[in-house]
């Protein structure tokens, strides 16, 4: 290919991609009724609105005890969901991992099962579970748990394959049994990384719990929704601030722990 031809072809591909993107964008804007002019002014408008309406006042501060109690529920919920999900995801990951699987068909089943759990969005979990469990914290916990279980199953499978594949081979060669190999090579080799994934899920679940709370009428998310809908924006702002602080604190603690254990 001559240089001239090469550049012409590259230019053609680039133009085709750009035209395609523009067409998709136009289609997407049309079907969602996305108002481009409105979009450009939205951020400055929200900033102005926030300065006028979204700063906590005295009443918002007086509601702090209730907000903090809801926040505590949310933290409990995300820790519980992450912990239980991790406990159940570990055997699932053992079955699904290339390193520790017992049988090919079982590994395929475990991977498929985890994949379905992971691909049902957490909002769908919440809405499905609410039918049977009603609007309660427990429903929120279950929704977080199912989504976390799907995510951690895959994360643990990858961790086991990365962290312990070679030592598992060595222990098998030395005549160790399956359970011995798991307890002496897989667990010590991949525990720190798995704990790191758990900490990550706790951080994520605090945010997801807010969403799930809105859908299931519980926790901090529901409280925020109520304040917003009853035009008490300043109290809602208080919640936003509390969430920021909580998430940043948890992130800082997790990062410090990761530095020690990893």
């Amino acid at each position: 290919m001559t240089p001239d031809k090469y550049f012409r072809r590259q230019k053609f591909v680039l133009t085709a991609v750009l035209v395609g993107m523009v067409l998709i964008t136009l289609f997407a804007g049309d079907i969602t009724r996305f108002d481009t002019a409105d979009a450009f002014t939205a951020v400055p408008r929200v900033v102005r609105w926030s300065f006028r309406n979204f700063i906590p006042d005295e009443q918002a501060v007086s509601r702090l005890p209730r907000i903090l109690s809801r926040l505590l529920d949310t933290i409990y919920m995300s820790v519980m969901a992450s912990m239980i999900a991790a406990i159940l995801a570990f055997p699932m990951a053992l079955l699904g991992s290339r390193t520790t699987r017992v049988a090919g068909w079982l590994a395929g089943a475990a991977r498929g099962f985890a994949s379905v759990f992971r691909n049902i969005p957490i909002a769908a979990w919440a809405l499905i579970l609410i039918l049977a469990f009603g609007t309660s914290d427990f429903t929120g916990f279950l929704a977080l748990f199912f989504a976390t279980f799907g995510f951690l199953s895959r994360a643990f499978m990858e961790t086991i394959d990365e962290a312990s594949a070679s030592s598992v081979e060595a222990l098998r060669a030395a005549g160790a049994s399956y359970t011995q190999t798991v307890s002496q090579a897989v667990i010590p080799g991949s525990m720190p990384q798995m704990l790191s994934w758990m900490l990550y899920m706790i951080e994520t679940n605090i945010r997801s719990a807010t969403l799930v709370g809105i859908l299931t009428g519980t926790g901090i998310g529901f409280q925020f929704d109520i304040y917003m809908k009853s035009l008490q924006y300043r109290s809602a702002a208080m919640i936003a601030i509390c969430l920021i602080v909580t998430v940043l604190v948890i992130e800082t603690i997790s990062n410090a722990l990761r530095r020690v254990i990893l």
Partner: protein
Amino acid sequence: MSLLEVRNLTKDYGEVRALTDVSFSVDAGEFVSVIGPSGSGKTTLIRCINRLIDATSGTVNYDDEDMLKLGGRDLRHARAKLGMIFQHYNLVYRLSVIENVLHGRLGYKSDIQGILGLYSEEEKEKALETLDLLGLSEMVYRRCDQLSGGQKQRVGIARALIQDPKLILCDEPISSLDPSSSKIIMDYLKKIQTELGITIFVNLHQVDVAKRYSERILGFNSGRLVYDGPPDGLDRVQIEEIYGTEAGELIIE
């Protein structure tokens, strides 16, 4: 009766034949090197012997047991008597040196002892002796990820030795090491053969190392055994048969 006897061993990966009709035997106390270009089946051969890979056909007789017929507990016991060391050491890097060494005893222990990591005082004493032999007595509790490559490989050797094996399979033990660490590791393997009388069966990339240390060399090309004899018998023609014409010129100065 030889310690290890391989007869008509063949291994297929789908359409690809990795080993073709390989037969040889190894006597107790020998130092045998396996050489051949990458992809010639050396690694597959070693793993077929201790059943990390299941061969397609043929027999492997080790210490009067037909390895390919064993299963479950019998296979574990047979493997326990057969040590193995790896190119990438294959240690549990987050555990200490002594914990990794004691993993070599798992094949002799019950499930529950193994799960809890319960080892007898004799086993621990043996682990210390072995570490002493390999010059690691100053780093008993060191985490393995803090060791150098050569030290990691010595931990791997200690783990194999504590199995009380009659034979140690070594899968390219020095391919990830610098020349001076490589020499230390090869010297230890030689010492283990001459002083402890343990048979050494080692895959090597370097022909000169194989010639210097072994009493017998097996040469592989494309999954076939093309040379089986003493290091001295390995002349230019043989090398070319193993490695191909051009490589032969490079290897023989």
